[in-house]
């Protein structure tokens, strides 16, 4: 418990510092009074409106007061107003968050579904042809950033390619691709499940393949180490079935790096989503943030960044707690501390 509180306070400090620094960064160079409001409202806004906005959000006071008022607004649900979108920021985020949430969770879950069985089998059949091909593939995908994968997958899956075969099937033509729409439309699963998956499949793939590769590399490495441990030999020796040894005894003790990495990837998924959403014109949090930063939409950036940091903090805490669930030894050490 004490350990948990200590971690919580540490993460709270991180949250406040990051949100504060983001606020200062967004206001860099806007030093004259009224400048932030003018940026916020656009060049043509009249003086009365500028003064009113400055008053409302205390934009003429020092950074700490501004931060305090913004934070107070956040807590009470008022995230400010986004002028380029002429919407309250909370409305704007509500409209966008689902896309990224779905995209991100598909990517992580699909990544785990692909990575875990592959990695376990690779570790079990170490140095076999399967292991080598798997390692090579995962190495290649680790090195394939989203801006590389997105065009390649577009070429293979979205564009219609007519391929003319040569000998022995002289001039026989096959058409592959053209299975998915070029531009992702925001169709939610409760509206039309089929169309939803069609629209989200390629962007998800762009995010998930590198993630799956990272996961499987980590898990394979750890599994190889675990399978050499004495307790695995003992379990086999006392007659536990190989399948159970592999999937229960060994897997459970190999999950630590994977867990850390899952946490990191959840925290960083918006980074990948920025590229994927831009490429496939899906309007989610990623595209919203980029537009907001470029158009100096102060409150949107601040509030969205605060939400992201809060998510990262919560994920980190959860990962920390899961460590203790997985390994009784950690629970014990922490209880003593």
């Amino acid at each position, binding site marked *: 418990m004490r350990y948990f509180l200590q971690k919580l306070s540490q993460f709270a400090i991180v949250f406040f510092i990051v949100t504060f620094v*983001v606020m200062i*960064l967004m206001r860099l160079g806007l030093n004259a009074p009224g400048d932030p409001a003018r940026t916020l409202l656009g060049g043509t806004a009249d003086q009365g409106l500028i003064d009113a906005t400055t008053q409302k959000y205390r934009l003429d006071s020092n950074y700490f007061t501004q931060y305090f008022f913004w934070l107070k607004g956040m807590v009470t649900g008022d995230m400010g107003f986004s002028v380029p979108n002429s919407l309250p920021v909370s409305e704007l985020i509500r409209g966008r968050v689902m896309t990224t949430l779905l995209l991100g969770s598909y990517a992580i879950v699909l990544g785990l579904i692909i990575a875990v069985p592959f990695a376990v089998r690779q570790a079990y059949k170490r140095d076999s042809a399967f292991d080598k091909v798997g390692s090579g593939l995962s190495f290649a995908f680790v*090195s394939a950033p989203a801006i590389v994968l997105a065009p390649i997958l577009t070429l293979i899956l979205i564009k219609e390619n007519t391929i003319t075969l040569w000998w022995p099937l002289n001039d026989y033509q096959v058409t592959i691709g053209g299975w998915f729409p070029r531009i992702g439309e925001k169709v939610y699963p409760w509206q039309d499940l089929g169309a939803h998956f069609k629209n989200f499949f390629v962007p998800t793939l762009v995010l998930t393949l590198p993630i799956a590769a990272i996961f499987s590399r980590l898990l394979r490495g750890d599994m190889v180490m675990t399978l050499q441990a004495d307790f695995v030999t003992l379990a086999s020796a006392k007659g536990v079935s190989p399948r159970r040894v592999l999937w229960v005894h060994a897997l459970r003790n190999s999950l630590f790096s994977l867990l850390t990495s899952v946490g990191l990837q959840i925290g960083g998924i918006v980074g990948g989503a920025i590229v994927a959403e831009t*490429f496939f014109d899906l309007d989610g949090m990623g595209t919203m943030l980029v537009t907001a930063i470029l158009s100096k939409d102060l409150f949107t950036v601040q509030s969205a960044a605060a939400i992201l940091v809060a998510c990262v903090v919560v994920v980190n805490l959860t990962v920390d707690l899961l460590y203790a669930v997985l390994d009784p030894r950690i629970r014990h050490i922490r209880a003593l501390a």
Partner: protein
Amino acid sequence: MTTTISPATAAAPEPALPEAGTPTPSKRRRFKRPPIGYAFAVVFLVTLTLMAFLADYLPFIPYPDAKILGPDGRPGRYEWGPSWTAWFGTDGVSGDVFSKTIYGARTSLQVGVFATVFGIVVGGALGVIAGYFRGWVDRVVMIITDCLLALPALLLAIILVNRLDDYRNDTEWLGWLSRKWQIVLTLGILATAPLARIVRAQTLSLREREFVLAARSIGAKPGRVMFREILPNLIPVILTVAFTGLSILIAAEGALAFLGLGVEVGTPTWGKLIDENRNKIDEAWWATMFPCLMLFLTVLSFNLIGDRLSRRFDIRQAGV
């Protein structure tokens, strides 16, 4: 410990000595396997670097702003596919994609290397100091790195580059900070956090070793212990992380350019090429695919070298 890594010694396959007992088949095979991937990575990177920095003097690389005339003698959009006239085809402004890709490599490599050097100097220093002094210094450094890692890296990079650009326009003494150096600075800051963490972790274990104790007991000051005793032992770790980090930073530079936050207008980069030509992927796949391929091969090569180094020095870098 040897810290100089020449490709020749690193690439030489180690002799498979008959060990006592029976060596497992897997072990034997691993000693014999020639390092194809590593050799490819070194050759590719050396060639690419040479071509990129000597591009002005090489006769077979046109200037990036040269117009390649189409078959009818006039410049046009996407006139050539991959051919002898234009090796990687031509793009929407009838520029040569091969030349733009090579000049793009110059930008990417420069940005990546400078940002990594920045990350090594700042992150390494922070890490060594935090690991050596521990206590509140360590706390402060860890909070800084936590803060840097709390926001998605690409998002932080977009904010920093965008704001630095505005800030420079308002501030006289920052005139030298062109777009390229803004990106270098931004990516360098991002590279600082993971490097600081790894160096700190290594320093924490190194400072308990006997040679550090010996140095301290004959009266060496902290600065000397850190620089002369601990730092040389950190070089393998830093080198390994630097290569892996370089691949991540080059990918990040590509992503920034793709989002419109690349270097100055007129300088070709891979990300910009991909962004400009992606809507024409149906008619002219070459203009998008070749920059993609180059970016992929570069990232892959740095990863391959990083992987080889980490095996050689037995370094685990799960956290990166």
